[in-house]
């Protein structure tokens, strides 16, 4: 019996980073259980081709076509199955609702290893001094143990992308036709320039704790709150009956979309097998008939009620029940991708690709989904950074490009923006273990054809005079970026969504303060 979890590392082999694991727990809601489990009919993910009238939206009709997965719904009350899909259909105005995809890179992504001094940068020498072993050579391909970078168009050689973020055609080594350079284009304001980057976005005073920092980024302010910034937006602008309006592609809800009132949900991207006892796997001789009805019986055991204050026993029973419900999902994820788009595959990149494929599918299905969160871990690179971070950068850049192409093929790309961030940056100087320690000023990216591409936040520079206690200066308050996303893109009622009041607008290198075309 195989289970969809990370395989144990080989004996004495290379250290195996556990990517989809506890590091991501910081971003998940852990103290609240789902209110209910919603079966996701296959036809719903296909966009309900058989009809969107009340006659077609009955539970019996919808589930006839099979179940693609299960959503764990978090809301203030249980909702009816048909109620949900009627609301989903009603919310899906065919044209132009702006949608936001949030990609969180967990661990503190080293921004200086993504966007760094280019060939004409005045602080190139200072950068090299700060990172004597792991610095990236300007405008060269990676070779023979030295890692390279490629100048970013339109910055006059001031800044460069790390090679693993650049497409093959652009001279990079991410192994894909897509990269941050292809999304970025010429960095001007026009069409084809669809990626904005902010090299040092964060909050001050910097805290450097994974736990506190990630809480602040999800809350949208400098406090640990029980709702997320996007959750608050949903409470003000969303539906009272459609949990698919905001989805976390995960086994548990992301703190970013945690609401006080309106329903939201989490959809795991991997199907599971449930509880089976196949003869040969537990002591019966192989060939003996398999024990029937273990899943059914487990559902019965999970339905026993526990006292209201026994959180752990309630959680145990409800999770067993959910595991039975998730089991036996019909369509596998490979059937959900738009087969023409070349998402990166293999190892941990596959996890990210699968999640983005399901995201694209959900957005295209017209179920009223406005916000999707995807988390991906493994960026806490205290040691041997090049070996661990570069493969992930390849995966992120290739996946973002493939995701954009996927959305374009589905005809919805113009209404989708992807926001990429991490909970802090890392120190300018390397530590003694070929890595970097927690620092300030992480990289934020916005990707999409509606984004006003280009260099959207000041690069603080890494000469010692520009550093603050060895860390990059924070040149963009992350709340300013959130504010721009709220007012320029998502719209609607944004009063009080950010708890710390209205932040200052961003300042772009080329002038202006908008993030969207």
């Amino acid at each position: 019996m195989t289970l969809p979890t990370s395989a144990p590392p080989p004996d004495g082999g290379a250290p195996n980073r556990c990517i989809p694991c506890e590091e991501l727990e910081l971003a998940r809601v852990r103290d609240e259980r789902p209110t209910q489990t919603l079966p996701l009919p296959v036809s719903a993910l296909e966009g309900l081709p058989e009809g969107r009238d009340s006659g077609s939206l009955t539970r019996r009709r919808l589930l006839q076509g099979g179940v693609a997965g299960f959503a764990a719904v978090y809301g203030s009350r249980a909702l009816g199955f048909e109620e949900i899909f009627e609301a989903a259909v009603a919310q899906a105005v065919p044209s132009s609702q702006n949608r936001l995809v949030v990609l969180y890179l967990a661990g503190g992504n080293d921004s200086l290893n993504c966007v760094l001094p280019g060939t004409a940068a005045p602080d190139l020498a200072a950068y090299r001094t700060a990172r004597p072993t792991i610095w990236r050579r300007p405008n060269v391909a990676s070779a023979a143990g030295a890692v390279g970078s490629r100048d970013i168009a339109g910055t006059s050689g001031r800044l460069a992308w790390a090679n693993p973020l650049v497409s093959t055609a652009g001279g990079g080594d991410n192994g894909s036709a897509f990269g941050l350079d292809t999304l970025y284009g010429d960095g001007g304001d026009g069409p084809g320039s669809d990626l904005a980057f902010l090299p040092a976005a964060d909050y001050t005073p910097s805290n450097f704790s994974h736990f506190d920092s990630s809480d602040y980024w999800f809350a949208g302010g400098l406090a640990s709150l029980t709702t997320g910034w996007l959750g608050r937006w949903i409470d003000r602008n969303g539906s009272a009956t459609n949990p698919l309006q905001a989805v976390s592609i995960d086994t548990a809800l992301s703190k970013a979309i945690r609401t006080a009132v309106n329903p939201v949900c989490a959809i795991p991207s991997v199907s599971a097998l449930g509880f089976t006892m196949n003869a040969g796997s537990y002591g019966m001789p192989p060939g003996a008939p398999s024990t029937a009805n273990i899943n059914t019986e487990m559902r019965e055991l999970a339905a026993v009620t526990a006292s209201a204050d026994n959180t752990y026993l309630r959680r145990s029973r409800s999770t067993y029940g959910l595991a039975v419900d998730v089991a036996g999902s019909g369509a596998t994820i490979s059937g959900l991708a738009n087969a023409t788009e070349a998402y990166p595959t293999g190892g941990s990149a596959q996890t990210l690709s699968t999640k983005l494929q399901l995201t694209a599918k959900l957005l295209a299905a017209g179920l009223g989904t406005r916000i999707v969160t995807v988390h991906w871990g493994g960026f806490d690179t205290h040691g041997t950074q090049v070996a661990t971070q570069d493969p992930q950068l390849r995966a992120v850049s290739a996946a973002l490009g493939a995701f954009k192409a996927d959305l374009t093929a589905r005809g919805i790309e113009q209404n989708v923006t992807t926001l990429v961030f991490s909970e802090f940056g890392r120190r300018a100087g390397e530590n003694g273990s070929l890595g970097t320690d927690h620092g300030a000023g992480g990289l934020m990216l916005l990707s999409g054809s509606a984004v006003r591409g280009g260099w959207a936040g000041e690069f603080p520079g890494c000469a010692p005079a520009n550093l603050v206690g060895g860390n990059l200066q924070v040149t963009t308050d992350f709340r300013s970026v959130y504010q721009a996303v709220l007012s320029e893109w998502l719209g609607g009622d944004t009063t009080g969504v950010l708890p710390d009041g209205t932040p200052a607008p961003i300042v772009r290198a080329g002038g202006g303060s908008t993030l969207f075309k």
Partner: protein
Amino acid sequence: MAVLRRVRDRVRPSVPTRVRVRGITPTQATLTWRAAHDNRAVVGYEVWRGGRRVVRVRGTRYVDRALKPGRTYRYVIRTLDAAGNRSRAGRALVVKTPPAPRPTPATPTTGPPSTAPGSTSGGTPPGTSIPPVTPARVMTQAMVDRLFWRAGFGPAEPERATWTGRPVADLVDFFLTSPQALDPAVPAPVTSTNARPIDPLVTREEGVIEWLDTMQRARNPLTERLAFFWHQHWAVSRNDGIPIEFVLTYRNRLRRFGDLAANPGASFRDLAIEMTTQDAAMSLFLTGYQNTKSKPNENYAREFMELFCLGVRDGAGNETYTQEDVTELARAFTGWRLNNTVGSPAFGTVSFSSPASTYHDTGSKTIFGQTANWAAIAGTPSGAPSAIDQVLTHPAHAPFLVRKLWSQFIVSPIPDATLASLVAAYTASGAYRLAPVVRGILSHPLIFESLDEPNMIKPPVVFLVGAQRALGAPMKGTYQRDALSNMQQIPYEPPNVAGWEGGLSWLNTNTTQARFDTVLRLLMLKHKPPPSPTSSTGFPGAAAIPDPPADETAAQAVATAYAACTSPWLADATRARLLGFAATHPVTTATNRVQRQYALRALILGGPDAQVM
């Protein structure tokens, strides 16, 4: 004009009326009365109990908390005025405290389960009973089970027999003073091919099994539970390429601090010193050895404050340290070098830079507002005061550590009074002794809260070893480590320096399946003999479940399976459903009936009720 002569007040105030008892528990009574009057002014009332004055109060209410259960008390309230006149005594109020409630009756170990579908245990509703236990109280079987789960890896039948009926204090004493010993009756683990006994230095899997084996066989399991707690606290992961020799030394060190029998004076301060200045695994994991005067590295100093000793915020929400404190502590910790050369006779030794100034920053540093030439430990180098002590004396440290230890054993938050008394015991004489804190926690009544519906989740390691003990299953090859990997807790491989998140995060749809699957693996190890003496499959000594008789009833099937699982706790409603399952399972062939046994055991030990303790 007449001069008013001041006349001394000799008039008694009136007797308070309507003296009533408003609330009564075994140890306290709330008294109220109606206000009295006086010719001048009433200033208060005196509460007299059993002929003695207990207290003077200003208002008309008093809560007497010093009572004992099952006793009778006589109260008299007397009014007091400014001149010191007292009212007469008035009629006494007689108050009887109820006896202390008994804990709910123990679950019978054998016998047919309840046949009423959906029934719950009668009497106290589940989840609400906390017998007000004092350490002298004798234990029911449920209480014995509870202590063996919280302080160990579950009870075995001989342990139930030994301890049921004895006082709580005796078992707590056993846990704290009984020397380490391994049960020889449990089969020793072997490698995947049944070829040889395991050797933790050879493969990852064997490294994990070696510790699990000790946990399974320990006569006094508290040592291993505490050692594992310290592993979660002072987290080190071998995934960063740390040599296994360093990891085993680290583990043995933690075990020393968990063995409160051999080391009754075990002190957190000593542990902190050893981790900072002696432990090779920690030095490598948090790069302490790279923290030098010329290239300071804050990794260890930050975690020392944030995770190991203080926490980011104290109980009131104030930050406990600043970034400057971290930087200065890192400077104080500079200079501890590690010999990481394989083959060197000093491999794994941590030693201080010599001369000191080569790698140690001897300058003055300011930590928590105090400036000195701080170093890790006092006198190294000569004249330096101890930065470790400077951190431990921070007022946030003791409550932080006591709370963390408490939540290892008990779910409800620690009461303020208990926190205060454990902090006092912990910090007494600046010793930071661990035994009084552990003893205080294990003896606290709250460890028996929710006895009839257990409310703490079993972490994967506890669940696995507990299931092994319950079944009497052996360890072998990669089975146990694979199971723990799927349940997301592999010893020596915490996901990050904060250890494992724990709590609700242990349970998601993947890990619940993994827990069920673990029980299937253990059933296989227990019941699948090798097909031939030289075969590598199966486990030597395993024996198949014997064929049940053809006329075995559903109730008998459940009883047999339940006993084979060492009669764990199950909710009544769960038992009823299992009975229903057994009744509808096919039974026409011997294979069917054996399958019914396997299925019942898997549901009992791998189902939702088995995840709490």
